[in-house]
């Protein structure tokens, strides 16, 4: 089974002046295949660092993360990444962006074209294949980024605030899309977000992280994501249980923020 196992991951940044920042401390968790984990937390709690380590862009100071039986040691195709700003290659068209990974692997162009079409259909961009990406709206760009990542058939999808820069309406649509993809592909997904509502809606499991040192503060197992597959997202949002959970987490984060501010003063 290709579970994601994090064992005592520590990340300590050292600046040139000699100051050290303990970005992550003893992060240990196991994510089973097909689970959707959302990570929440105030700024500076190490969410993105954790994601970068999982992606292989950073090497932890100590501890290790393994996917399946392989220790993560550098970026790889089996871990797809979706960024906040899309990070699309704006000099390429939608098609060229989506088939980028397959082109790099020098796969058969005809098969690739077929796959690209399928994926564009899934993310709802049918017919936009030849559009230059800089002409797309923010939501459409994120759809391209999703398709670009998924076409490589990764085991794990890492999303770094993928919906952060979108307007409320687009965001809601994209949330449904993420859930739909999760359900249809059964991929393991780690999604980092600033929005408590989003974390609750999408996360089968939710980690609330705390800063200084960055650590997992609290873990939730929630039913909303599975419900979101069938029900309307807006109805879930008005659910009493949802509202109370949201308030609880918000208060928790507020307290953490206040603690930081107090420390700084």
């Amino acid at each position, binding site marked *: 089974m290709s579970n994601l196992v994090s064992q005592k991951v520590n990340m300590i940044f050292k600046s040139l002046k000699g100051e050290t920042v303990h970005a992550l401390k003893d992060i240990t968790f196991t994510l089973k295949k097909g689970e959707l984990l959302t990570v929440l937390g105030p700024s500076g709690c190490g969410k993105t660092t954790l994601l970068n380590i999982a992606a292989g*862009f950073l090497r932890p100071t100590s501890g290790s993360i393994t996917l399946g039986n392989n220790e993560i040691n550098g970026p790889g195709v089996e871990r*797809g990444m979706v960024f906040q700003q899309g990070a699309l290659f704006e*000099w390429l068209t939608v098609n060229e962006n989506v088939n*980028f990974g397959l082109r790099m692997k020098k796969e058969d162009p005809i098969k690739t074209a077929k796959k690209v079409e399928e994926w564009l259909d899934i993310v709802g961009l049918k017919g936009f294949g030849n559009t230059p990406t800089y002409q797309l709206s923010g939501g459409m760009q994120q759809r391209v980024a999703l398709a670009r990542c998924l076409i490589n058939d990764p085991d794990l999808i890492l999303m770094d605030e993928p919906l952060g820069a979108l307007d409320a309406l687009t965001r809601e649509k994209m949330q449904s899309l993420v859930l739909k993809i999760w359900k249809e592909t059964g991929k393991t997904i780690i999604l980092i977000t600033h929005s408590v509502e989003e974390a609750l809606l999408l996360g089968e499991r939710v980690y609330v992280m705390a800063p200084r040192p960055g650590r997992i503060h609290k873990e939730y197992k929630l039913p909303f994501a599975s419900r979101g597959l069938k029900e309307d997202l807006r109805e879930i949002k008005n659910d009493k249980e949802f509202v109370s959970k949201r308030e609880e987490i918000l208060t928790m984060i507020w307290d953490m923020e206040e603690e930081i501010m107090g420390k700084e003063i």
Partner: protein
Amino acid sequence: MITGFITFFTIFAVVGAILYGRKLIKTEKTDAVFGNPERAKGGMHWVVVGSSFLLLSWLYYSWDIAKSFYPKSANELCQVAKVNESLLSLKYLFPIVERQHKSTAIIKRENINIEDKIILIQNDPNLKDQDKKIFVNILRDTKLMIPSLTDERYLEDDTKNIINELTIRLNHLIENFPKDSYPNLTEEEENEINEGLKKQLGWGATGMEVPPLPESKRGLKFHAAAAELNSISDEFFEMRNHNPEYLRQSEAIFGEIKEYMDGLGDGRELDYIKDIKKLVRRIEYASIFPPKTLDELENAIRAFDKVQNNEQGNLRTIDIILFPAGTIVASGPQCSEAGPGRWLPKPSDTFRIFGEMLKPSVGYKMIPMLWYEMMGVNRIVGFILPDWIADIMPGKYPVHNQDGTVDPNFKSRMLDIVTGEFEAFKIPVPTGHIWDSFLRVFLGLSLGIIFGVPLGLFMGLNRFAKGFFDPMVELYRPVPPLAWAPLIITVFGIDNVGKVFLLFMVSFSIMIISARAGASGTQLSKIHAAHSLGASRWQIIREVIFPNSLPEILTGIRVAVGMCWGTLVAAEFLAGTTGIGFVENVARKYMQYEVIWITIFVMGMLGLLFDLTIRKIIDKTIPWRGKG
């Protein structure tokens, strides 16, 4: 003719465009407020006005409008200038240009001078009283000479006759000058002028600014009158009012001086004696006449001035209106253009000479501006292929036989090919000054891009490369390219190699800097994305970092083109035998203003062409710029 047509056309264009502009304002929305950048959009009609304005200014200030509408005017004005010049020396005698008669002024001045000298002598403590007395006496006598000149009683009949005769000659001139028949030239004189006219070149860029010989009837009149006036004034200034009374006094003064000098005995001349002699001579050479003697001559001169002014007719108006910021009359009998007419070539001349220079058979300094020559493909092949290709072929070069022949073998045939010694068809190859300049810029720039972009990208991504190459680039880059030119031209020669290398240096540093900026400006998330999509290092450089740096690189190319172009022209100025800069430098030596301006225009146009091309390329290749 064409100039005239263009002048009218541009004026109509200006008027039309302004009217169109007024109409447009009336129909525009009234809610447009000041400061709205939308208001600067469009406005082609103002472009028409702007360019027409430039063209009209050029036509006007180069005196091309005058040349077009009054082609004879410059020549005629030149003749007028001759008359003015001749008349001027006579006019100066009388209160026409001056405030008083010249005689009056001289008498006043010399009286003061003599009195000053007397006071100076009397107050000189180093002078013996006896000497003082003698000097003052001589000076008093000198002063008394003046009345002998101004007293009408002493005036000789001969002098009176000459003055009368000159007055009569002037009056004749006054009478005859306006007549159509004037001047009554003899056949011989007429032939002489006609011969001269045949050799005379036209007004403009013909090596002569304004033709000096009269080309028209009116001009001939002034030309002849100027000659007559010259003769009159020559005769007048030869004449001296040295009557017997004056001569007696003058002799007496010199006698006194001699006596004093003999008394000293040592042949030394005191400074005071020198000064006194100077004063006496000044009075001797001044044209001092009794007060009323020259009245008739004065009247005649005034009358002639009036007559010649009348005869000038519309020439005066043309001179004032169509010869701005300088006149031909002011240049006197030299007949040259003054003011902008001198250094601002006429558009008509400029375009004519440009047309001439464009002819491949004429060109400039035996080299066409832009043409083609037929070149055998063998020469090109021989130039491109290095000779060592033949050397590494198997076998040996043939040795001559006993009967004195050489059998070619495979190796020698290869040598013939790589050295271009074979028969081949010919293809046209561009040549000429413009092409040479263009090619140098193109080669220098291309080399700069080929070497600079990869190195710049490398430096943007690699600490070692940045640190290692930075000192080299940063040490030579801030030096103005022209400061390198003397060294590089000395080392690499005045031909293409030196210049291309200089331009390579210019573009190389610019390309390095822009490619480096482009590479280091790549968003990390893009590189992360490419990594997690499975791209290798080389693929990331080629597929992500390079296209991401393209906007910077293309901007760098645009800057480099401008820099290269400027440097090239200056380098060609320094040394070389072809190229636009070379043409300008030679034209500068020979004061060929038209050619100088042509080179300026050609450079401007080529620079603009370069820039427009690159702008087009930028728009086509990086439409995403600023939208990422």
